[in-house]
Structures are given as C-alpha cells and as structure tokens.
C-alpha cells in the first residue's frame, strides 16, 4: 500500500510538472532588449528597441553588436506584439539598460506601471527625449548603432560629475504617483541637460550648466521645486535660483538670489560657498545664455556679475547683476 502511494505521488508530480511543460522559450528565440524608446503620437504608440544581436555577437566579437526593431500599435503591448510577429522572437525586457520616454509618457502612471509589468528593473535609467524612437536608432561616425553601454556610461558620467542625478523608473513612477516635479536627464542626440517635469503638465528644459546648478541645490536637505509661469524655482532655506523662460515676455534671465537667516554660526560661510559655486557654474555658461537669448529672440538677459565678454550680441541688451538678499 505504501509503495503504491509513493508511486502515485511521484506520477502525479511528474504529471503536474509535465503540464507546465515545453513552455520555455529557448535563449536564441528571444530578443534581449538593451535600449528602448517609446513615444505616442495621435493615439499611436511607437516602440523602438535596440537589441543584442546573437548572430553577430559571440566569441569572435570583442563587443556586442546590436540590431533595432520597431513596431507601432494602439498601445505599448500592441507595438511589442507587432515586433514579435515580424521578427518571430519574444521580446525580453529584463536586460533593458535605459528607456527613452517623452514627457507625456512620464506623466502617465498607468503606462509606467505597464513597463514595470514587463520585468524591467525599477533601477532602469529613464531619459527624456522629444523623439525617443530616433534616439534608439542613432549611429556613430562608423555607422554602428550606439549601444546602451555608451548611453548609460555617459548618463553615469554626468551623474558622477554632479551635473545631475540618475533617474530611474522607480523615481519616475513614484513621482507620477505622488505628483511633484522630477528632474529627468534630457537627450537630443546626446545628453544635453535635463528637464524639470511637473506631473501636472508643465516641463522646463535646462541646459547642462543649469542642470548642474539645480543638482547642486538638490543635494541639500529640504529642497522645494515649483514651476510657475515658465520658470523653475528651486528653493532651499538659503538660496533660490530662478531659471525663467518666458517667451511671451521675451525675457531670459538667470538670477542668483541667496536669502537666509543668519542665526546659526557658519551660515554666512556656507552662503558664500553656495553662491560662489553656483556663480562658477552659471558664469561658465554665460556665452550659452547669450546665444540662447539671441536664438530665441529675447530682448534682454541678466548675467552673473563676474561675466567678462569679448564680443557683443547686437540684438540683446544685457545687464550684469547679482542679487544677494540676506
């Protein structure tokens, strides 16, 4: 009786295991996505992926080779299905190194949750782009696709230099859930700065130096950010930096305002340090500010006090000031 029972148990287990059967997907039947770009346009979702090419990579190749696939559909899943049908392979997102999204996608928590359901790690870096699909298909000078390693390393390099903080899917999803502003790296054929994305609908674009200044302030505790009009305002207890882009008024200004309560010893030293650091960063890009002002048709620009220039910009009147309020 006992041996019969054991045999029945073993056979049942084999049956159960066998029922799971054969549903495994072989390694070479998958597309391992290393980079992904998703954009939506007029209700149509375009998904572009860059994947490791197993036929071209391998022991003879010192670096992995890539291939791109793209698909369109009414949703992310439909677009992915189209790629699957055309290539005959399953898409696998578990190795996705970075995701390019547009600012509508970043604001949508349902769409972000969709990504989480595809086994993409919550630590996957997110990069904002106006044309995410094109970012995935960029090539270098030798007409080779720029792989995810290159992109991720440049994101991380800027993060290590303190220009901005790496933003992951976790951060973006949390911001979408809770509302608020998140500073996301921005790409326009290369990492060109960051965008302050307000989940209620506004986006402010920052160049690298502006990003650096914001990041410098974000390193402090108790930071508050707000977007009002076309400006991103970053406040800490003793410093406020305004980046105002107001096309209607045609004015572009960068003001450095430091304010604080000097009742703690050492506060004034810290204020000076913050001011010097922010001025150093911002003054390094004053040429860029002027170029931007001229390019966008601004009438005036206010620049930090240490600005020294050798050429004038005929169409822009500029003044130099530093406002320090204590």
């Amino acid at each position: 009786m006992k041996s019969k029972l054991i045999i029945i148990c073993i056979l049942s287990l084999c049956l159960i295991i066998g029922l799971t059967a054969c549903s495994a997907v072989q390694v070479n039947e998958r597309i391992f996505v290393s980079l992904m770009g998703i954009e939506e346009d007029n209700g149509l979702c375009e998904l572009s992926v860059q994947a490791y090419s197993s036929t071209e990579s391998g022991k003879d190749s010192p670096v992995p080779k890539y291939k791109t696939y793209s698909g369109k559909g009414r949703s992310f899943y439909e677009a992915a299905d189209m790629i699957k049908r055309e290539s005959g392979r399953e898409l696998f997102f578990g190795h996705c190194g970075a995701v390019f999204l547009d600012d509508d996608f970043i604001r949508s928590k349902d769409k972000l949750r969709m990504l989480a359901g595809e086994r993409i790690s919550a630590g996957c870096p997110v990069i904002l782009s106006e044309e995410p699909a094109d970012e995935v298909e960029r090539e270098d000078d030798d007409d080779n696709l720029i792989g995810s390693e290159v992109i991720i390393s440049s994101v991380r390099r800027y993060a290590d230099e303190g220009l901005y903080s790496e933003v992951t899917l976790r951060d973006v999803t949390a911001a979408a859930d809770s509302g608020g502003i998140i500073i996301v790296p921005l790409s326009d054929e290369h990492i060109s700065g960051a965008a302050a994305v307000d989940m209620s609908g506004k986006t402010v674009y920052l160049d690298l130096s502006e990003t650096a200044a914001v990041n410098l302030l974000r390193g402090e505790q108790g930071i508050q950010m707000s977007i009002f009009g076309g400006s991103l305002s970053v406040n800490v207890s003793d410093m406020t930096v305004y980046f105002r882009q107001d096309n209607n008024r045609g004015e572009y200004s960068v003001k450095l305002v430091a304010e604080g309560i000097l009742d703690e010893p050492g506060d004034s030293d810290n204020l000076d340090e913050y001011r010097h650091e922010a001025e150093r960063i911002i003054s390094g890009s004053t040429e860029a500010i002027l170029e931007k002002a001229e390019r966008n048709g601004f009438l005036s620009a206010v620049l930090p006090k240490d600005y020294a220039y050798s050429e004038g910009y005929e169409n822009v009147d500029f003044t130099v000031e530093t406002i320090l309020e204590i």
Partner: protein
Amino acid sequence: MKNMSISRGQAIIMLTLFGVLFCVLNTDYSSMGKMLADTAVTVIILSVMAIPLVILAGKCSGTVPMICSERLGIFGKAADVVFFIYFTCAAGDVLSRYGEFACERYFREAVPVICTAMLGAICIYISHTGAETVCRMSTVLLIMLVLTSAVFVFGGADDIADFDYSTVTAERLSLTDGFGGLFPLGAAGTAVLCILCGGLGKKTRCGLYAGLAAMLTAAVLITGAVWTTLEGYVFSSEYPLTDSVIYASRGATFRNDGLFFSLWTVIAAAVISLLCACAGHSFKCVFNKIRYEGIISGTAAVILAIISIYTEIPVCRMIYAVPVLPVFLVSVIPLILLFAVKGKENR
C-alpha cells in the same frame, strides 16, 4: 502520534519565518510609520492572546488538541475539528497566495493553479514527515536567510544610507489596525504553538515570546529595507519586497533576486507544511486510527487553494483571517482547559 522533540530555538525561527513570509506576500506597504506601528500592535495583541496557552503548556504535557480530546469529550473533539479547519484554511490561503505570486513574478509560462499544485504536492510530502522535520529545516533556512539578507544589505547600502528618515513619523492608530496586515499569518504562527507546545513543554513561554519578538524584528527590518530602497515606488509596486530586492541588486554583475525567490519558496513550503502538519495532528486527535494524516490535511489545503484561485473567491481567507477564530483557538480553548485541569486537580 508522531514524536515531537522541538527545540526552543526552532520554534523561534519558525515564527520568524512566518513574519518573513508575510513581508514577501504583503502587497500593501502603506506609510512606513503606520506599517511599523501596525506590526508592533499586532505582536502585542498576539502576546496577550497567548497567555492562557503559555500557562497551560507549563501545567500539562501534550498538545492542545490532544488535551482537548482527552479532557473535554465531545466538545474537545469539536474544538479539534475547528483546529483542523483553521490550520487547513491558513495553509490553503498561504498556498494560493504564494502560488499566484510565484506564477506572476517568476513563472509566467504556467498558470497559478499549476504553481499552487506543485507547491502543494511538495508540502504534502513534507507535512507527512511531521512537524519535527519542518522545525529541523528551519535552522538551515535561518542560515540562508542571514546570508541573503547580508547580500541585500550590501547591495542596497547606498539607498539605506541615503533615505530621508525624517519622513518616518508616528501615526495615529486604532485598536482594529492591529488586526490587519501581519495579524492573520502571525496568529496562525501563534496557533501553531498550540501543537508545538507538545514538544516544548515548559519552554513554550520563552519560545513563544522570543518568537514573537523575532517576528516583529524581522517584519520591522524588512519593512525598513523595502521603504529605504523603493521609497515612493512602494505604492506602485505589487510585491514591494520583490521589487526592492531587484532594485538593490541593480549595481551587481547579475540580478540576484532569483536567490531570494528560491529561499522564499522553501520558506513558504516550510510554513505551509507546518500548518498542514498541525492540521493533520488535530485531525488525528479526532480520528485516532487515521494514518497519513499529514497527507489528508495537505490534500485538503491544496484543494481549497485551487478552488480559491479558480473561482477567484478567497475561500480560505474568509475563514482563517477572521480574528475571532485564532482568539478562540489560542486564548479561549486553553483557558477552558486550564479550568478543566484545575477542576480535576481539586477533585
């Protein structure tokens, strides 16, 4: 009856594993302050509930169902049936939830019923070997738990250090807050002591309270680890502990959440098997001549779990998660037995 020589340490570890399993399956990690407070209140409630059991274990030898059937006649048998139903439903609920979790996160190629059936089959075998076997497994599981926790802490050290601890604030709680969250599984773990006390004897008090303290510590540490790693993402995540493990391993050469998942699966098997073994013991107290009681109770748990999944009605949870039942089993019955024992002594 199967012999049970359980050590105090094993009982403590088993209760800790109940706490760990709760954290794995928990989908609702509300604010960190509230979670910690809920967990603490739960453990306090369980500690108070278990006082009659501890006193009884110090006076009488044998398990509570055994003493019930010996001392209380037909009422005792009825109580044993309630024990059986409770433990079977607890096992069935954990089995169905874990089967769904495993299918959804790590085994998408299958369906939840298959995962549940596979896990259930293994639990039937382990419960047949007895509660003592499961308690012996717990020592090895503790070693693995410590090692994997070290891996997690090592990977997530940056996030843990950078977390803004000022956001953790005290929350106002009501008494009923303690009956959510950890309570169902924690109460099941406490109820398991009604059976394990047969092997622990006078050490039940130390084993129980140290075990509850360990359960609280485990739940607190894991909650802290999840929150510091995921922060606001917990609200979007369906299984926050799993996602925090994945997030913590993002800097590593390879993702190591498979290691954690394997450990959690063995822990789930141990917990479910222990519940089935306890159910089987209660069943045997009613029907003495029954053999293979572990297989019977395990099969019942699997069937209930599959029904829950297939019908999408949490049949097991509706029975075992009701606070009245563990209070009755852990507090009321031992209290009645204490009076029965005392009455017999006086006579």
